């Protein structure tokens, strides 16, 4: 899997690259600011661009803006955005066009090697990887009682939250310590309650997650 890594702190970038290479990824380009990132991402068309939010030139949200730009110009390139803080507002911006190939994680999660490399891989395969903290925030924001989500049982909500993290049914089953058949049952129920029965499976998952993340009342 081919990656571009954008991170302005040299120390951290070196660490990330080494870690990713050891985990078997091929890092085809490195960038220290937003412009370099866009250039290299569009040139290399990697499977995933791993992007730090705060980067030069303005050191605010340049990385995020660059990630959005890359998604617009090269929808096939997955983006995994890393940030010292995760913000619901940024999550909404990133997910505006769908959760496929999008990841948004707290930066310090990279120290959890397995989790991090898993996230990179999921995004590269067109899935999504959202930090549990993003999920918690979004869940809090979605407590409005008229939401279709209000019809979900707590167990279904847990399942949906894990789906939003980008996990497979098997992954969810492990996490919830239930059988994968039980998870499948929950997932079907979720699709039906959200009115997604008719949609193809892959798409359905993404739509359910999106609806969940946005707190749609429909």
């Amino acid at each position, binding site marked *: 899997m081919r990656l571009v890594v954008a991170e302005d702190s040299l120390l951290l970038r070196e660490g990330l690259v080494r870690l990713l290479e050891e985990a078997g990824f091929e890092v085809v380009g490195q960038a220290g600011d937003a412009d370099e990132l866009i250039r290299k991402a569009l040139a290399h068309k990697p499977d995933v661009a791993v992007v730090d939010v705060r980067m030069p030139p303005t050191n605010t949200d340049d990385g995020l803006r660059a990630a959005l730009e890359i998604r617009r110009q090269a929808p096939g390139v997955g983006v995994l955005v890393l940030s010292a803080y995760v913000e*619901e507002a940024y999550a909404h911006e990133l997910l505006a066009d769908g959760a496929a190939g999008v990841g948004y994680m707290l930066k310090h999660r990279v120290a959890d090697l397995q989790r991090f490399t898993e996230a990179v891989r999921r995004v590269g395969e067109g899935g999504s990887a959202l930090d549990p903290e993003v999920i918690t*925030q979004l869940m809090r924001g979605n407590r409005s009682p008229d939401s279709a989500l209000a019809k979900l049982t707590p167990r279904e909500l847990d399942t949906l939250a894990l789906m939003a993290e980008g996990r497979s049914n098997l992954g969810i089953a492990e996490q919830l310590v239930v059988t994968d058949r039980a998870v499948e049952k929950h997932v079907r129920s979720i699709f039906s309650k959200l009115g997604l029965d008719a949609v193809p499976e892959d798409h359905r998952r993404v739509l359910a997650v999106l609806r969940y993340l946005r707190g749609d009342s429909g």
Partner: protein
Amino acid sequence: MPEPGADILVVASREPVALEVWVPLEEAGHRVRTVADGLAAITELKRQLPDVVVAEWEAPGLDGRGLCEAVRGDPELRDTHVIVMTSSARAERAAEALEAGADDYLATPFEQTELLARVRAGRRTSQLRASEARLRALMANVPGAIYRCAPDREWTMELISDEIERISGHPPADFIDSAVRTFASIIHPDDRERVENAVFEACKARRPFVLEYRIQHADGDARWVLERGQLVHGTNGRTWLDGAIFDISARREAEEERRRREAEQARVAELRASRARIIEAADAARRRIERDLHDGAQQRFVAVALQLRHLLSRLQKTAPDAALLLEDALDELQRATDELRELARGIHPALLTERGLVRAVEALISRLPMAAKLHEAPKERLPQPVETALYYVIAESLTNACKHADASAVTVDIGCAQGRAWAVVADDGVGDARMTEGSGLGGLSDRVEALDGRLTVQSPPGRGTTVRAEVACD
């Protein structure tokens, strides 16, 4: 030079006499009315005052004496010029007539030229009297003290109107001929030299002068007056100063008051501006600290964690005991990173600068351990100092609602209209909150006031707490 005709009232009981007076006067261009006796004359005078009255001394009914006495006794008629016709055969009549109040007399028989000359002179006198009356009326009615004085250092008054008593507390008679005091003596000592010099210079240059200075009122207080005056040259080589003095204490006080108010406003504005600068500087420092933490310590922590993970993966094969220890250390490092992150966020929420107040407040609400709702929020971004101030008010109020209120719901409203921006945080909790110096809420009122704003807390016991901050926003 022919003068315009005068209005003349002739009082004559006998036809020939009337004709003898009337005809030449009309021929000379005067307008003549005639009446037959004194009573009719009084009625006619009251109807319209003539310039001159020519009356027979001896007449039936009200005679010349009666007419003169009636005219002089009536304030409205008093200034009428009366010429009495007396017989030249009885010279004592002339003295009697003048005694009774006549202005002049004509001895009969008389020449036409004499009649005309007396009437002309009479008319001039009556015009002079009228203008004097007007002057007197003016002096009495003008809202200032009119004066005429000698151009000397004492301001020796020849005349000064009654208004001076209201202005200075001293009766006008005191100043006439400096009988009791000189006018110079009531000019405030600090202003005396300035006034003297200004008047002297103006007189020398033959210019009118306008001065504002203080006088000392009889009650001991100083009063501000405005004086306009001018050196006047009389026909006989005499000179004097004519002018008017007005009391402007009220205006001066109002000006003084306005100046004081403006100075005070300027001071308050400066205070506010300097407070705003201090807060702005502090905010800038907070943004810098957050950035330093983010780019420095936080990055380093992550980098160190990465390296330690590498080490861990090796140790797990070679020295499992050490690996366990390292894992603990990594957990600790994780907690430190979390704490540092929350600390940095508390120092300055980056989202506030990057996405604005509304997003920052939404993020705040989503991290809150209780249900909160953002009702209204402006679509546009507000100026940075406004967003920052409102953010901290909302953040503190939400924290308070969670900490103290025991509320089931809290709402936030943000608004902006007509040069004002506001934030309202309301909970339905226990109420009875107090804004105390130095604590969370009290500390924010400085921030709000620096933006020409107000922070109010309504918190009746048992009926929830509403915190409202309103600031200028343009």
